[in-house]
């Protein structure tokens, strides 16, 4: 057996990915079905001389990672729906102050405390619009442990590249299921490190003055530069401003830095899409059931394919539009009441050919559930 092959839960794969990416600080409040992440972090981080803190709640957890990130460290927290709701205020602060951080939400059924031990994908829109005000956000997901690992590393890379919070939206099935993970060798996946300012001690540092390429180099808070950080609209010194030009430019900057880079941020997988008449679109654990159906029906001559989204936000409009162009029908497979369905309908030329195969009862969607919808859509009856 090779040392780097593991048989572990998805939550553990996320921890391995975060450590590989260089995580140095974790603050969290354990909650089902994400608990294993905090549990494993609590002994893996101290082993490498880094900090794990169990906080009093999720508001404090989110605030703690924001502070730690400002001091120059890679940070993460993990939660589930109810905790994710509490994090929304500070999440908006991280968006506004442009602080790199990674937030894992292993989804359970909601609203409220909902159904803790069962699967759901009901937080897709909360990830997008949970915090108030116009903003852009990055949300990644995955359907197997190798991808959980890869998307976790990708999450840290995007957070550092664009100075933004990144949400990793996993679900109970992926979090708890055990399967193989091959941990990549060091250097196999490139890592993005913090862009630090070249302004030396004693020279004025402008925390929000972009370089020529638009990026904002950071200075470790508490280090050699004194500067202000705020959730208010702010100027290049980081001080509050209500100057209309400043307000306008900052909001545009916050949205454009993500939306102008959709292609770089978009991760996806495609299966048999070249000649597909039936296109399934799915993500997270439900993509496994969708792929099961595709692999079952392809050998029987059905022209069916799957687009598995790994970047949910910013939504890959062009990719989805192009993929669905020649499809007779599109079926979105998800475990909510149609949150990605709405996005797909928004971007395709013929919204009426887009259908939903879903489950909202806490039970993992089965290949049969999907085939039943397909038969209805294809006019074959159930």
């Amino acid at each position, binding site marked *: 057996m090779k040392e780097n092959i593991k048989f572990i839960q998805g939550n553990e794969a996320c921890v391995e990915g975060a450590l590989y990416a260089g995580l140095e600080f974790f603050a969290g409040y354990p909650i089902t079905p994400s608990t294993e992440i905090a549990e494993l972090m609590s002994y893996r981080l101290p082993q490498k001389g880094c900090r794990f803190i169990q906080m009093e709640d999720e508001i404090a957890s989110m605030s703690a990672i924001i502070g730690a990130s400002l001091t120059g460290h890679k940070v993460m927290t993990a939660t589930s729906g109810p905790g994710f709701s509490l994090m929304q205020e500070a999440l908006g602060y991280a968006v506004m102050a442009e602080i790199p951080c990674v937030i894992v939400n292993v989804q359970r059924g909601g609203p409220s405390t909902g159904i*803790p031990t*069962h699967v759901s994908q009901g937080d897709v829109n909360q990830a997008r619009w949970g915090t108030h005000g116009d903003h852009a956000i990055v949300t990644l997901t995955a359907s197997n442990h190798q991808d959980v690992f890869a998307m976790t590393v990708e999450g840290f890379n995007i957070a550092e590249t664009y100075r933004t919070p990144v949400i990793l939206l996993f679900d109970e*099935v992926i979090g*708890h299921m*055990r*399967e193989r993970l091959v941990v990549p060798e060091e250097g196999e996946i490139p890592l993005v490190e913090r862009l630090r300012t070249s302004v030396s001690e004693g020279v004025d540092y402008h925390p929000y003055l972009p370089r020529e390429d638009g990026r904002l180099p950071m200075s470790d808070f508490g280090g050699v530069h004194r500067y202000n950080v705020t959730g208010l609209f702010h100027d290049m010194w980081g001080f509050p401003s209500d100057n209309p030009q400043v307000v306008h430019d900052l909001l545009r900057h916050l949205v454009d830095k993500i939306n102008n880079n959709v292609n770089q941020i978009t991760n996806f997988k495609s299966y048999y899409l070249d000649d597909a008449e039936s296109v399934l679109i799915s993500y997270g654990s439900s993509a496994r059931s969708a792929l099961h159906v595709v692999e079952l029906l392809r050998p029987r001559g059905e022209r069916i394919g799957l687009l598995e989204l790994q970047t949910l936000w910013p939504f890959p409009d062009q990719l989805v539009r192009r993929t669905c162009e020649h499809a007779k029908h599109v079926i979105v497979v998800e475990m909510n009441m149609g949150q990605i369905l709405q996005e797909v309908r928004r971007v395709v030329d013929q919204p009426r050919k887009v259908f939903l195969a879903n489950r909202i009862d806490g039970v993992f969607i*089965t290949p049969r559930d999907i085939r039943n919808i397909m038969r209805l859509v294809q006019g074959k009856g159930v």
Partner: protein
Amino acid sequence: MERCRIVFSGSGGQGVITASIILAEAAVLYESMTAVQSQYYGPEARGGATRSDVIISYTQINYPKVIQPNVLVCLTQQAYNKFYPIIRPGGLLITDSRFVKIEKKVDARHKELPMYRTVMDQIGKPIVFNICMLGAVTMLADLVKPESIMKVLETRIPSGFLEMNSRALALGFKLAEEYKS
């Protein structure tokens, strides 16, 4: 068999889930097969009917749960009553004769093994009941090599308890031999 779907069921504390993880881990780490293991969380995992699903395969596994198991293991009456209808026709049903009284005929090979009694008679510690069961199931269903299970035990079990566990495993293998035909 190219793909085997196994459901382990019993009650919380019997070690059903641990046994299923050991099996799946043996397949992945020491036999280069693909395996997934998932379990049902919630109140049922604390004293009620526990269930753990394992799929072992030579090809990629997408849908990770088991709907119709090729092999169904029931270690309590409650688990048997709940799960016997889901077994795949022609499959293998394994029950423990101390805990389960068979009520219905199923379209499956049925092996009623005195696993608990054997463990208590020979070792006297109920804690290794699950390992004995794992030995019997592995042998009867021809899932992985005995050495692979042993290798996992060596990594997971404190050295002081390894000998007892390996005896329990051997008891399971022996029971399977006796009841094979």
